[in-house]
Each structure stands twice: as structure tokens, then as C-alpha cells.
């Protein structure tokens, strides 16, 4: 064994796992989306592009796709606005509480998604905690509709995905040399201006990474929209699973999944282009 | 007490010749410095000797035996890195024991030798500390101890004092040189700091662009530089032009803007030569046709800039007494022996 070949052995297992269980299956999905739908069986022989046509021809699916993308975008924005200050505090703060705060941010990742979504159903229902408290305190007359609709999904998804926004931004801010802000102050910039013109732009790579991650995860989320949206509001991913598991329409389900992935991918690429930062050095 | 021999050693990175056919003989027990600016190939040469890089051409001999086939771990070298490279997960004792453990020494011997070397570097009692708990100077001494405790054939140091503050650097220079003399180990020291090289070495090897510009004792390098580049790099220097007038009995007569001088050596009449003159070799006497243009007091000495009657600005250095101020008229006194013709 030459010295060159040795290190390659290290990547071999990962390469195998990714090729066999990721690459090939994904390629298979592309194939599957072009198969003929079957009657009573998952798929029939033959090839067609009809599955895609069926999707684009049906306003129901188009609206659902648009709805899903909308939910994704709003969730991303919410996570950004809510999460940025927290990321700032985590990156800059020091002291004993830091470990605790960091742990709290990680908690959603460590607690099952089912449990979290379940908690939201308890909180958001008409008879749920939030509404009962608000009504009980006399702040509102009728319960707010927070379940079984887009708003509830957005709230729950924001909760689920907040860590994915906070952590990359925190990382980016931690990498900013504190001397830069001081330099700005020495040049006459006030605290706010220095923050706005030095910290925020320099944290842009983290913001970009966080937004892309959250958006992608939001549009492809299954459990949370399924539990919160129930039968009334279904996002695209829920529809896909329905088509596959409940109605056994493998080709159509695959086509739907592919469309969702491609459109989502296009949005991400467009976003990355728009927010491209020329000054960022490639690592 | 190993002799090291480099024969037409070369190393390329892509099209860049980092080391371009250098040959060098290092006697046993000698302290040799590789001196040069960044990129001159001194660190690459060190890495080739250590075995971290493989040479493209030439040979490296330890006591006459070619070590090219030996990987670094088998060359029995001791190396001190610029940022010390102490293992953070091991204590000082653990770091020191590492090399001995690789050589499968018994535990009692390791303990004994570790204690001895800690004594040698004056860090007794710190065996249980971790590197992060030590100061920069202490870490440096641990790095030195780690390299010496294994009693290697040669000691290699890669700009070890670069990260220390000025006073510590001065102390460590003497410390390292002293230690090396006591142990008697052949040592190769890489630095870009010429005063380090001059104060510590038996021999200085000046390198530019992957090649050796001059090898010699510190005095040779400083007083008799082989080229203008060497003269410029090692200390400050004035280079003045001279015209050879006539050949004399033991040398020749040359006329310069500072006067006429008789120098030993050979030259052809009519030849134009360059002469190196160190600032401290220019004597300043009150009254003359040169003017002081700048004066910087640095404690024990004063650095002057003087404009000659011809308009040339020369650098001079003198004791603070007598002290001249900007604008004073001075005469420049130079002895012929202090003029060195450059190749």
C-alpha cells in the first residue's frame, strides 16, 4: 500500500455509505418520477412525463406549493428577526449563564420533534393554554385560531428551526475581531452605527447560511405541519407522504417531491446570488 | 557529536526553487545559523535536514551516511519549533517523556532523565503543569528540554525566539548558547534576526533566494561581507564608489568622495569598485564640510545621518560624547582598514 492510498481508506466508508444510500436512491427518485402510475400497484411499466404535467395542471397543487414556499419564507424571516439578538448575546456574552443559554438553544434539537410539536398543539388549540390564558385574562373575546392553519404552522416551525438560525449567526459573530468595532468607534461612530456598519455586514455569511438552512428545512418539514395543520392545511411535504403512503402513487409522489426540491433549490440559489458577498474569502 | 553534510541540496515547489543546490559542512558540536530574509529557503533547508520534506536533488549526510531514505522519525533529531508545538493534552513531564517513550526507555530512566533536563533548563518542579499554564519563556524552555532529553544527534531550531518579547529574547540567546556549549551538540539555528545569528553562532550561513551567499564566522560576515546584498542584510552599511588610481607595493590606491586611501589587495588601475563602510567606522569631528542632517539618540549610541560636500547622505554611529546636533558642520574620519571592497 503506497503512502498515497492510505489516507483514501479513511474516506472510503463515508463514500460508500453516501453513494449507496444517498446518491443512488436519489437518482432512483428521479427515475421513479417518470414512471407510469399503476393501478393498485405502486407503479407500472413504461415512462412518461405525465406526472409533472398532472402537478402543474392542477391549481390545488400549485396553490399548495405556493403556500408551502410562503410558509417557508415567513418562517425564515421570523427566525432571523427573533434569533439574531439571541445569537448576538450568545456570541458576545460571557459568564456563568452562557452555558445555560447555550443549552437552552440546543434543547429543541435534543428533544424529539414529535414531543415539541405535541407541546405546540397543547399551547395553540382553541382550548389550548395560550387561548385559555388570553381569554381568561380578558384580553380577547374569542379564541384566536392558532391551530389547523398556516399561522400555527409558522409559529411551531419557527420554534423548531430557531436553533438552526441562531447557531450559524453566533458562529459568524464570534469570528468577528472585536478590535474592528473599536476601530469604528475610534473613527467617530457611535455604538449603534458601529454595530450596524461593522458587525451586521460581517455577520452576513452566518445570516446567509442560517436563512438557507431554515428555509430548506421549513419547506420540507413533515411532522410539524402534519400535527399542527391536521387535515385542514397540508404543506407540500405532507402531500407527498400522503401520495406515497396512503394512496401508493409512487411516480406522482416522486414528481411532487422533485418539484418541491428543485423549486426550493432555485429559491436558495437565487437568494445566495443576491446576497453574495465579494469580500468573503473562501475558506 | 554528529557532523552534518549537505551536498548540492535542492527542493522545488512547483516552479519555485526554494532551495537551489546548496552545499554545507557542519562540524560536530558546531552552532551554525542559517540567516536570511523570509523566503530565502532557510526553513525549507531545516525541514529537509529534519526529514519533514523530501529533497529533489542532492544528499544529506549525518556522519557520512546519507539519511535521505530515513523518515523524520528515524533520524534521531531534536527539534524546537517557532510556536513550541508542545502537546496540550500532556503535562510538561508527559511532553518530555514522549520522545523517550518512543525509544522504549524504562520508566525509571525516563523519570531520571526528565528531572535532569528540567534542572538543566531551570524549570524544576513544573513537571506536573500543563503547557497552557506556563509563560511563553517557560514553554520555550520546555520545548528545548523536550528536544534535548532524547540526546539526539543534532539539534534543529526554527526561529525559536520569534514569539518572545525583547528582554526575554536577549536572555534566552545566552541561555540557549550556553546550554548548547555544555551539551556539545551539533546545532542548526534558523533565524531572520542578524543580531541573533551574530551573537550565538560559530558559523553564519547567509542565504538569499535558495542559495548560499556567504559562509563564515560572525566577524567575517560582518566585517568582510562577500557581496553588497550580504553587507546590506547584516547590519547597516554605506556603500561608496571608488576609482582605482594606481597599484601600490602592497595593494592599490583608490580615491573616493571621502578621500584617498591605500587598500591591500589587488585591483586594476581605472577600475571602479564599491566599498562597504559600516556606520560605526565613520568618526565625526567638529568642523568640516559635511552637515549633520538627522540625529537619533538610542541610549548608548547616537545614529546620525550626514550629508557630505558632494551631497551624499551617509549613516554614521557614534558615542553620545561629543554630541552633534542637526545642522552642525562635521568632518568625516575614516580609516583605510575599515573600507571593504565588495565583489
Amino acid at each position, binding site marked *: 500500500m503506497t503512502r498515497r492510498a492510505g489516507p483514501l481508506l*479513511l474516506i472510503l466508508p463515508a463514500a460508500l*455509505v453516501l453513494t449507496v444510500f444517498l446518491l443512488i436512491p436519489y437518482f432512483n427518485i428521479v427515475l421513479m418520477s417518470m414512471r407510469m402510475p399503476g393501478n393498485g400497484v405502486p407503479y407500472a411499466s413504461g415512462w412518461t412525463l405525465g406526472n409533472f404535467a398532472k402537478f402543474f395542471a392542477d391549481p390545488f397543487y400549485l396553490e399548495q406549493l405556493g403556500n408551502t414556499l410562503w410558509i417557508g419564507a415567513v418562517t425564515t424571516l421570523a427566525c432571523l428577526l427573533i434569533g439574531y439578538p439571541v445569537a448576538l448575546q450568545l456570541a458576545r456574552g460571557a459568564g456563568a449563564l452562557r452555558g445555560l443559554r447555550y443549552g437552552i438553544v440546543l434543547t429543541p434539537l435534543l428533544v424529539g420533534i414529535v414531543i415539541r410539536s405535541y407541546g405546540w398543539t397543547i399551547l395553540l388549540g382553541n382550548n389550548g393554554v395560550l387561548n385559555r390564558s388570553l381569554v381568561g385574562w380578558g384580553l380577547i373575546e374569542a379564541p384566536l385560531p392558532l391551530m389547523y392553519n398556516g399561522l400555527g404552522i409558522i409559529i411551531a416551525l419557527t420554534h423548531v428551526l430557531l436553533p438552526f438560525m441562531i447557531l450559524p449567526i453566533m458562529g459568524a459573530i464570534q469570528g468577528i475581531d472585536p478590535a474592528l468595532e473599536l476601530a469604528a468607534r475610534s473613527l467617530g461612530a457611535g455604538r449603534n452605527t458601529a454595530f450596524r456598519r461593522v458587525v451586521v455586514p460581517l455577520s452576513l455569511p452566518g445570516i446567509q447560511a442560517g436563512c438557507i438552512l431554515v428555509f430548506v428545512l421549513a419547506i420540507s418539514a413533515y411532522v410539524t405541519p402534519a400535527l399542527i395543520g391536521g387535515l385542514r392545511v397540508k404543506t407540500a411535504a405532507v402531500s407527498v407522504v400522503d401520495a406515497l403512503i396512503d394512496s401508493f402513487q409512487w411516480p406522482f409522489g416522486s414528481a411532487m417531491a422533485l418539484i418541491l426540491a428543485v423549486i426550493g433549490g432555485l429559491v436558495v440559489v437565487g437568494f445566495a446570488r443576491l446576497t453574495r458577498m465579494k469580500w468573503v474569502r473562501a475558506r | 557529536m554528529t557532523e552534518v553534510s549537505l551536498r548540492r541540496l535542492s527542493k522545488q515547489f512547483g516552479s519555485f526553487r526554494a532551495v537551489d543546490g546548496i552545499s554545507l559542512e557542519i562540524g560536530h558540536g558546531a552552532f551554525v545559523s542559517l540567516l536570511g530574509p523570509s523566503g530565502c529557503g532557510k526553513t525549507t533547508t531545516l525541514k529537509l535536514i529534519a526529514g519533514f520534506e523530501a529533497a529533489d536533488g542532492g544528499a544529506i549526510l549525518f556522519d557520512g551516511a546519507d539519511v535521505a531514505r530515513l523518515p523524520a522519525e528515524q533520524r534521531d533529531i531534536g527539534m524546537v519549533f517557532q510556536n513550541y508545538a508542545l502537546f496540550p493534552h500532556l503535562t510538561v513531564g508527559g511532553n518530555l517523556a514522549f520522545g523517550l517513550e518512543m525509544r522504549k526507555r524504562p520508566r525509571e530512566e525516563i523519570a531520571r532523565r526528565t528531572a535532569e533536563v528540567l534542572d538543566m533548563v531551570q524549570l524544576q518542579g513544573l513537571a506536573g503543569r500543563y503547557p497552557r499554564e506556563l509563560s511563553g519563556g517557560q514553554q520555550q524552555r520546555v520545548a528545548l528540554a523536550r*528536544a534535548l532529553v532524547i540526546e539526539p544527534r543534532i539539534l534543529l531550531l526554527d526561529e525559536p525566539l520569534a514569539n518572545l518579547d525583547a528582554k526575554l529574547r536577549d536572555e534566552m540567546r545566552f541561555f540557549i548558547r550556553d546550554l548548547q556549549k555544555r551539551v556539545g551538540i551539533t546545532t542548526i539555528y534558523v533565524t531572520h534576526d542578524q543580531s541573533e545569528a551574530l551573537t550565538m553562532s560559530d558559523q553564519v550561513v547567509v542565504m538569499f533566494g535558495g542559495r548560499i551567499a556567504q559562509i563564515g564566522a560572525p566577524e567575517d560576515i560582518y566585517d568582510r561581507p562577500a557581496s553588497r546584498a550580504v553587507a546590506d542584510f547584516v547590519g547597516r552599511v554605506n556603500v561608496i564608489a571608488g576609482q582605482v588610481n594606481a597599484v601600490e607595493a602592497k595593494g592599490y590606491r583608490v580615491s573616493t568622495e571621502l578621500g584617498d586611501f591605500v587598500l591591500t589587495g589587488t585591483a586594476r588601475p581605472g577600475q571602479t569598485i564599491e566599498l562597504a563602510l559600516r556606520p560605526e567606522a565613520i568618526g565625526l569631528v567638529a568642523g568640516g564640510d559635511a552637515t549633520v542632517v538627522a540625529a537619533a539618540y538610542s541610549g548608548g549610541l547616537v545614529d546620525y545621518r550626514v550629508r557630505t560636500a558632494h551631497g551624499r547622505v551617509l549613516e554614521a554611529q557614534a558615542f553620545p560624547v561629543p554630541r552633534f546636533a542637526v545642522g552642525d558642520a562635521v568632518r568625516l574620519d575614516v580609516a583605510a582598514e575599515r573600507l571593504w571592497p565588495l565583489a
Partner: protein
Amino acid sequence: MKSLRAMIFGAYCWVVYAFLLAPIFVVVLASFNSGAFLTFPPQGLSLRWYYVFFDNEVFWRAIRTSLWVAAVATVISGAVGTSAAIFQVRFAGRGKEAVRIAMLAPLLLPEVLTAIALLFFVYGLGIGTKGMVGLLAGHVLVTLPFVFMNVAASLESFEPDWDLAARSLGAGRWARFRRVMLPMIKPGVIGGCLFAFIISFDTFTMSFLLKSVGTATLPIQLYDYLRTNFTPEAAAVSSFSVILTLVVVVVSEKLLGLKIRRF
């Protein structure tokens, strides 16, 4: 005295932390409900639903399944992810970014899509969801990026001079790996495996689509239960799972003194 601005900022952050903890807090509290229905605030406090849960073999079987799957997936991911991280940081050269993206791919691709892809794959191979091949493959894919990120992060702080120093002291490749590299990456490996275990334990979508008939992991069982059942038993099970996770994290942090790394 902190400025008003700092206090508002601090208070805002605490509100967000409360938001992050709210659902979990609610579930745990609801599990102590003494009544038969899931109300909040609880009508009274009692452990009765915990007793019901402890007697329920269905949930215990699901917990055992989850633990088993998580353990196997973690071992596999741990080995594969660690060696991949070592490769990426030390040996990948110009391919460094490409390897990184490839290893993070399962995280960036929709879990739902990956699960579907695996489903078709195992059916295509003829084994379907029998046996745990598909399920394990899915869990390995989901956990791999976390092991990789953790180990790679701890490796990034590895200085190449340490390796050179070890070589200069006479250490061969195996000795360097064992005595210098391994101790450095140990926190990263353990942290990554811990993360992987917990992620696998809690993952839903992958298990949902790839489970074989009759077996269920805990999240699946909980989900099933929630669709039809409205007693606080599910809350008790959930709380138990949360506490289990917490105990695992705290114990390993104390025992091994490591921090779970960010990605």
C-alpha cells in the same frame, strides 16, 4: 448599573428562551395532570399517568427499539464520520470543501425526500422494509453530519506542528495517531456520537417511512398515540424521554467533561 438598552435586550432574550422552552415545559407539566383529559393548567398534580405509562408494554417496546436503533446507528456513524473528518481536515487538500458539502448533504436535503428515496431503494432491492436495513441506513444518514461536524471542528484546532514535533521525537504513524491525534479528537468524537445518539433517538420522518410492520420507535409510537388518544399518558412518555435525554447529556458532560460543540 446596566443601561436601559441593555436591560431591554436581556429581557428580550429571556423571552425568546422562554419561547424555546415553552412547548417542552408545557408537555412536562401536562404529564402531571390528575384528570383524564389533557388540560392546561393541570387540574391537579399526580403521577397517575406515569404509572399507566410504566405498565404499557407498547411504549417500552418502542423505547427499546429506539435505543437499539440509536446505538447501532451511532456506532456506524461514529466510525464512518470520524474517519471522514480526519480525511477532510488532514488529507483532502483542494477537495476539502467538496468533501465537507458531501458529508453535510443528508442534513441539507429534506429528510422526507431521503426517506422516500431509501424506501424505493429497499423495495427495489427486494427486501422492502423487512429487517432493519432501510431504517438503519436512514438513521446513519441522518446522524452522519453531526458526527462529522463535531470531529472536524475539534480537528480544526489541531496544529500540524504537533504532528511534526511527534515525528521529530521518533513517533511513527501509528504512535502519532494513538498518542497525539486521538486524544485531541476524543472530545469531538464523543460529543458527536452523543449528538448522533440523541438525534437518532428522536428522529421521526425517517423511522416513519422506513419502519417495518410491527416495529415502532418511540417517536412513531407517540405520534400514533397522539392522533387518537387524548389522555396525558403521551405527555408522561414524552417527559420521560426528555428527562432521559437530559440525564444522558448531563452525565456524559460531567463524566467526560466535554462541551457539545456547535456546528
